[in-house]
């Protein structure tokens, strides 16, 4: 009010200039100078962090065995083997091995694979770990019961390996370093239809081959194990993962499990290369509770040229699920606050356009910049990056503090590669940015803030709730997360699905039906369509 009345002469601007940079600056000024919107974005970041910390902090874990003092927090953190790729792994099996120095190969014929399992409601399944009586176990193989040849760095859990095997329900497979799985000849093994398996080591490369008759061989695949020691442990193995029954209903979490055993019969064992003359050594690798479920020992029996090996457990990545024997947390659990942040971001982004209609400012805006499509583009380019920055800052803080908090509470935060971590964090921020653009477009289409905010929140958040926390069966939940904008939360999934591990991969367990970027693309598609419609209507309608 105290400024002099004579306005200083501004440097002359070219008449009629409405450069995009100027438009961007105008929109940025609008955003920056409305206190409620700036506060709204800060609130979005804060609630995102706070909700994430609440989720991480509320998971107080207690542990301890009967007869020993109860422990809690960090003392409960289990020792879980880590594979060569940095992922947590299950590495429990019965290993009949010899050291192999340098190059060499091993060949074997498998004539039988049979199994026993404890169903979840029989006491054996939950009974003491170890080689208890087999009473109460039912005969039957698990789909991923496996037996065959393995070459392994050493007998420590989590070391590098390559294996070729027959399985209970998936034919011959070659697997290496826990996450890799190659399919070979399908069908079950029997005395009438035996399988010949061969592993050959040359340097860091291990080649797996299979044959039906021992004469005509098919190369199944090669595994590159960089830095493999000169002397490795090689031999025969048998493993059998937990028996699992899952129902596709109510979160799909009614899984019943019990330990299982598999027994394989081998003969025609042949070796080439430098093997010791001492003969075979049998050992349980990783007894006790291993990875995610109890393991029941094993053993082997040699008679003539015939070897019978019994084992339990699995050689595979750990898949988190309702059946996990130890409390785990995924990094995305600390980002659950993104839902709260999203709601605040949607409110601000909607107001960014609807407030112009309410105040009549839209007419001034359009008079200043008659090319209406560019106005909307400028608004999107302001609100999107603002939401991204707020989301990124909140996600980084929530993840750092959340992971520390969860660890202190005794939850095992599943390790992921830094690339995955970057994808989850940046993806969460990008999700907020695209949701803001979607909300902006809806606001321009509907012009009413209440309706636009509701449509945005209901289409992004409600399908997730219906999929994760409602009575819908897994199949319907999967479809919801394929078709609706809620699919974008797949970008937060840090642990992949592994076809070689039987588990319930349901939305309520944190597994989305679409790949991370595909899910994110669904939201982008919705935002693009809404923005296109908004531009069209902004041009066609009177403001």
């Amino acid at each position, binding site marked *: 009010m105290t400024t002099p009345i004579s306005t200083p002469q501004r440097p002359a601007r070219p008449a009629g200039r409405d450069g995009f940079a100027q438009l961007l600056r105008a929109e940025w000024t609008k955003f920056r100078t409305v206190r409620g919107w700036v506060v709204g974005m800060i609130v979005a970041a804060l609630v995102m962090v706070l909700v994430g910390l609440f989720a991480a902090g509320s998971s107080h874990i207690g542990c301890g065995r009967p007869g020993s003092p109860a422990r809690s927090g960090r003392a409960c953190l289990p020792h879980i083997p880590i594979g060569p790729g940095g992922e947590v792994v299950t590495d429990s099996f019965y290993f009949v091995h010899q050291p192999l120095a340098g190059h060499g190969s091993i060949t074997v014929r498998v004539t039988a694979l049979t199994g026993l399992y404890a169903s979840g409601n029989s006491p054996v399944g939950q009974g003491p770990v170890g080689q208890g009586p087999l009473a109460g176990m039912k005969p039957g193989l698990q789909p991923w019961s496996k037996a065959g040849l393995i070459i392994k760095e050493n007998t420590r859990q989590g070391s590098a390996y390559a294996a070729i095997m027959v399985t209970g329900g998936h034919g011959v497979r070659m697997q290496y370093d826990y996450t890799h799985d190659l399919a070979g000849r399908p069908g079950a093994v029997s005395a009438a239809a035996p399988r010949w398996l061969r592993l050959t080591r040359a340097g860091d490369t291990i080649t797996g081959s299979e044959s039906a008759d021992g004469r005509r061989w098919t190369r199944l695949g090669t595994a590159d194990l960089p830095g493999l020691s000169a002397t490795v442990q090689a031999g025969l193995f048998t493993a059998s993962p937990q028996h699992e029954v899952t129902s596709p209903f109510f979160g799909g979490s009614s899984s019943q499990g019990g330990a299982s055993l598999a027994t394989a019969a081998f003969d025609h064992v042949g070796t080439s290369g430098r093997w010791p003359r001492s003969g075979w050594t049998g050992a349980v690798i990783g007894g006790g509770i291993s990875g995610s479920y109890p393991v029941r020992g094993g053993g082997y029996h040699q008679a003539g040229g015939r070897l019978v090996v019994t084992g339990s457990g699995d050689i595979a990545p750990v898949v988190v699920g309702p059946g996990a024997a130890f409390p785990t947390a995924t990094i995305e659990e600390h980002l659950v606050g993104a*839902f709260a942040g999203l709601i605040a971001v949607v409110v601000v982004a909607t107001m960014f356009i609807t407030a112009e209609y309410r105040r009549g400012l839209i007419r001034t805006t359009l008079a200043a910049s008659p090319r209406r499509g560019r106005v909307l583009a400028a608004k999107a380019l302001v609100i999107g990056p603002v939401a991204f920055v707020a989301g990124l800052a909140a996600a980084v803080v929530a993840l750092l503090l959340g992971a520390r908090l969860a660890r202190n509470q005794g939850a095992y935060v599943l390790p992921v590669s830094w690339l995955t971590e970057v994808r989850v964090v940046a993806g969460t921020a990008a999700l907020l940015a695209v949701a803001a653009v979607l909300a902006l477009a809806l606001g321009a289409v509907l012009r009413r803030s209440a309706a636009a905010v509701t449509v945005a*929140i209901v289409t992004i958040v409600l399908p997730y709730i219906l999929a994760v926390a409602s009575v819908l069966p897994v199949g319907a939940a999967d479809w919801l997360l394929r078709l609706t904008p809620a699919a974008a939360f797949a970008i937060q999934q840090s642990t992949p699905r592994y076809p070689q591990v039987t588990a319930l991969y349901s939305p309520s367990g944190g597994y989305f039906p679409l790949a991370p970027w595909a899910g994110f693309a669904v939201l982008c598609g919705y935002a693009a369509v809404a923005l296109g419609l908004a531009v069209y209507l902004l041009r066609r309608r009177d403001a």
Partner: protein
Amino acid sequence: MSHPLPAARAALPQAARGEWAGLRGALCAEWTKLRTVPGTIWLLVATIAATVAVSAAATAATSCPPGIACAVDTAKLSLTGVEFGQAVVAILAVLAISTEYSTGMIRTTLTAVPRRSAVLAAKAAIVGGLVLAAGTIGVAGSLLAGRLILPGRGFTAARGFRVLSLADGPVLRAAAGSVLYLALIALLSLGIAASVRDSAAAIGVVLGLLYLAPIIAAVVAGNPHWQQRIERYAPMNAGLAIQATTGLHSLPISPWGGLGVLAAWAAAALLAGGLLLRLRDA
């Protein structure tokens, strides 16, 4: 427009005499306001359509294949749409107040009816009544859809699933409770809108309050203690306990107790809204 409004006109002189007459006038005024805005009828129709459509879709998407024990609460399943319909109800209730603030109408309203609590009470009565009516149709339609669809999806009487019928005590309770649930959501939204005033912010607060709790409850599943607290005291989780017809003994909160929690939320919101309406300048 040239028709006189006898009720409203008669109410004016009485307003000075009796409190109830003043409330009657306020009721009339609110009814006229809400009735003559074109959005109201569309939102009511949308509430019904959203509830029935989502319920029918959820029911049709669920099937009970032979040989599997299906642990499905069919009444709750066929009322899934209430989770969606409540969002439309929230819009209706929020707009009943926030549009007055955005257009400046609130000053006219408060000039005509200076007792501010009467204004809020009248709005609550009218919006609540309308939502009860629309909710009844929506819930009845959802149950009808469930009744028609469920037997074809494997939920047959032969497998222990009774045909949905209001003659069944728990189903009647779930249905009537769902209607009340929607009305309480309207009151909760109204109270929040009276406090927040801005429609976008108010609807954001309402939907955040409703929808965030189930997500957080799913994440803290590792801690039954906190999960149970959320299931008991969050408005949507507690309120929807009224829809359960099976496994009642394992519910974190009893059906009517849950609806009571939601009623407490709604009462608290209305109280806060009423206080702020009295204390602040319009």
